[in-house]
């Protein structure tokens, strides 16, 4: 177990290094000159532009820029944005907000997704099964920004039940609607996943055997059916936590949440390689850790899976 963990952690090193190189190269390859763009429509003063290029090492060849970035990153200095803000401070402001939002969305989709999915799977064909199915189909087919705008208009502007936007330093209620919007599509997928798993497991031999041995209904449901149905759901959730952190841009924009998604988008537009690489590396780490957690959970859920 320990060895396995160590191996997995060591594997992260090449993954992270590879990501930084790849992303740095991609930002470098973006068309357009970030320094010229700083002047907008106005004439570019070449003497000033040269000063700025030198300050951000933009006048050096790609590979030199990359190694300078790496060298500084090793001392935890991730450079500065073009506005003169330390990259690490910007991420430090944005990341906690994204974590809050992603975890709330995660809890929302995990709890409601599993509960409705399992109910639906156990009581296949009942009227509430049909209702759950139709609602989940609706959520899957409607894009997030539609759910977002509709929710914002009715719950926020019209009826004033929930805050319209989250703003900076958002609290639980500020993020409630964004989290539900963000988690809604995944919740619908989990409902469908859980439902099909439960309904197929229910008909399997081991369930029949358990019942034949006289096990109580609750016991069969929780200890056998649910436990075996959860593996694909956990896989999905694990992947999704990473996706929620990196992919919340649309939700962040609708509800004015100053998180990682928006920060990345802005930095890409401005061509701030330092920021983009730092954020993407962080997200890579999140993904890798989430995957590791999922693999660990497999072992807890399925006795046949062992890591050595």
């Amino acid at each position, binding site marked *: 177990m320990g060895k396995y963990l160590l191996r997995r952690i060591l594997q992260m090193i090449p993954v992270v290094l590879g990501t930084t190189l790849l992303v740095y190269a991609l930002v470098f390859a973006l068309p357009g000159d970030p320094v010229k763009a700083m002047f907008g429509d106005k004439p570019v003063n070449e003497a000033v532009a040269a000063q700025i290029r030198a300050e951000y090492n933009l006048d050096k060849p790609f590979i030199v820029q990359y190694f300078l970035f790496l060298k500084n990153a090793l001392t935890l200095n991730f450079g500065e944005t073009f*506005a003169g803000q330390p990259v690490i401070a910007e991420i430090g402001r944005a990341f906690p907000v994204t974590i809050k939002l992603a975890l709330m969305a995660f809890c929302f989709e995990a709890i409601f997704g599993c509960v409705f999915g399992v109910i639906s799977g156990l009581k296949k064909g009942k009227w509430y099964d049909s209702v759950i199915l139709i609602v989940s189909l609706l959520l899957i087919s409607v894009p997030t920004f539609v759910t977002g705008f509709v929710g914002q208009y009715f719950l926020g*502007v019209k009826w004033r039940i929930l805050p319209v936007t989250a*703003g900076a330093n958002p*609290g639980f209620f500020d993020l409630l609607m964004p989290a539900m919007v963000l988690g809604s599509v995944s919740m619908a997928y989990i409902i469908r996943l859980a439902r099909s798993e439960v309904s197929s497991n229910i008909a399997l031999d081991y369930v029949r055997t358990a019942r034949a041995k006289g096990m109580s209904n609750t016991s069969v449901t929780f200890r056998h059916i649910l436990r075996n149905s959860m593996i694909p759901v956990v896989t999905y959730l694990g992947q999704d936590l990473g996706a929620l952190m990196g992919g919340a841009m649309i939700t962040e924009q609708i509800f004015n949440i100053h998180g990682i998604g928006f920060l990345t988008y802005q930095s890409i537009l401005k061509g701030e390689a330092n920021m983009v690489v730092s954020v993407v590396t962080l997200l890579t780490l999140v993904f890798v850790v989430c995957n590791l957690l999922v693999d660990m959970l497999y072992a807890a859920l399925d006795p046949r899976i062992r890591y050595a």
Partner: protein
Amino acid sequence: MKKKAIAVVAGACTLGMLLSGCGGSGGDSNASGGANVITAFNSEPQNALIPGDTNETGGGKVGQLLFANLVRYDSKGDTKMEVADSIEPNKDATQYTVKLKDGWKFTDGTPVTAESFTKSWSYTANAKNAQKCSSFFSMIKGYDDLQKDGLKGDEQLEGLKVVDDKTFTVDLAQPDSVFPIKVGYLAFAPLPESFYKDPKAFGEKPVGNGMYKLDKWDHNSQIVLTKNADYKGEEKPKNDGVTFKIYTDVDAAYADVQAGNLDVMDTVPASATKTFEKDSSIEAYNKAGSVIQTFTIPANMKHWETNTEEGQLRRQALSMAIDREQLVTKVLNGVGTAATDFTAPAIPGYSKDLKNGKYLKANPSEAKKLWDQAEAISKWDGTLTFSFNADGGAKPIYDAIVNQVKNNLGIKAATNPMPTFQEFRNAVSERKIDGAFRTGWQPDYPSAENYLYQLYDSRAADGNGSNDGDYKNAEVDELLNKAAAATKSDKQIDLYHQVEEILLEQLPAIPIYYTNADGVAAKGVKGFEMDWQNQPIYENMTK
């Protein structure tokens, strides 16, 4: 046993993260400030809050409230003395003597002196200091010396001489009659002595002499300004402060105005342009502003030259094939105004009735006639492409223009959207675009000179300015020179009109429409109006 432990640990982790994630307190973000504090929409400033390094609206809006310049512009774009008592030109407008009023102070208590201006201007002009507005000082004598290699950063502009504490003179490289207007631009703000000790710290917490002072700047969240009790200007702010809330998206801000969580925003999202004037939950503002939208065809493009009869006929035909009124009402939902000149309605000297103004009015049959005349001179059956940046919402306009041109002239036309503004501007500045491309101008100071010189003088061509089509016309240059030396404003305006009449005939760029000054305020906000810069007059608003 081991498995269970892992499951428990995993569960505990999730729960812990959940609790810490949900632990924040609500409410804080939606507080709309105190009783008489106006909350306003803004984007995060892209540079430190140093006047000479601020060249975009996120920082510009804040800077204008923090600093008072020699002059200020009133809501109509007329120039009024502010810190300056007088700005007197010599005969040919090559030297100015500036006298300051008494009693002006920075918020750190130090007085505003002649040196506060001269040192600040030299600092910005000096290339070593990498200030983005440095080229604003190019008309001052000695500017070129400050663009060389090997500077230390504290060299001063040769043309600035301090006479005494309250007086300085400015020598210009060439006549410039609009100099007294230019100095109202934010980059010409005075700076206190403390700035030079630590420009970086200053950029985080600037010290100015304006209507407001900076209370705090929470990055990506808010910028809190409070009234400056020592402000010496004639018109004092009517509220106690302005808090700029940073938004990532205009739609989110609009929803907040509707819900009463935000007092004012200086733009209307595209999704609301149809409805915002009828929406009873907000106050709307929508009037012609100072931003002009044009497209430029390179002056030396084959068959489209600005200095040949054929090229001029084609340009005139193209221009008359475009129905601007229809674009404004159908595509822009009325938040624009059809162009009638090369400046804008909010600028002193704007006119609707210039000679050759007919070329900006839709007239398909006349357009076709002119086009056939051009074809008789020399055949051209290429495709006219319209390039623009696709990230700025220009696509519907150019789709409509292409359709009008195809229908009315029967020629081949197509759009060429480029993904980002950055990529687009790069192609423009490297002169890589073959065909028409989007251009526009947002003025820095309210004068026709700012439009005409920067965009159409040959000295602004070839990458030395914003004459992106490299239009060169000796007559235009000559008239602009005369205007620059004319110290009387009606004489100046007359000369600018003459320039525009030439431009209307040769059409180096084809004006389409003026972006309206449009904005919304929450119900209950009093005194909501917008100025010549399409900005709300923050200091006049109360709750």
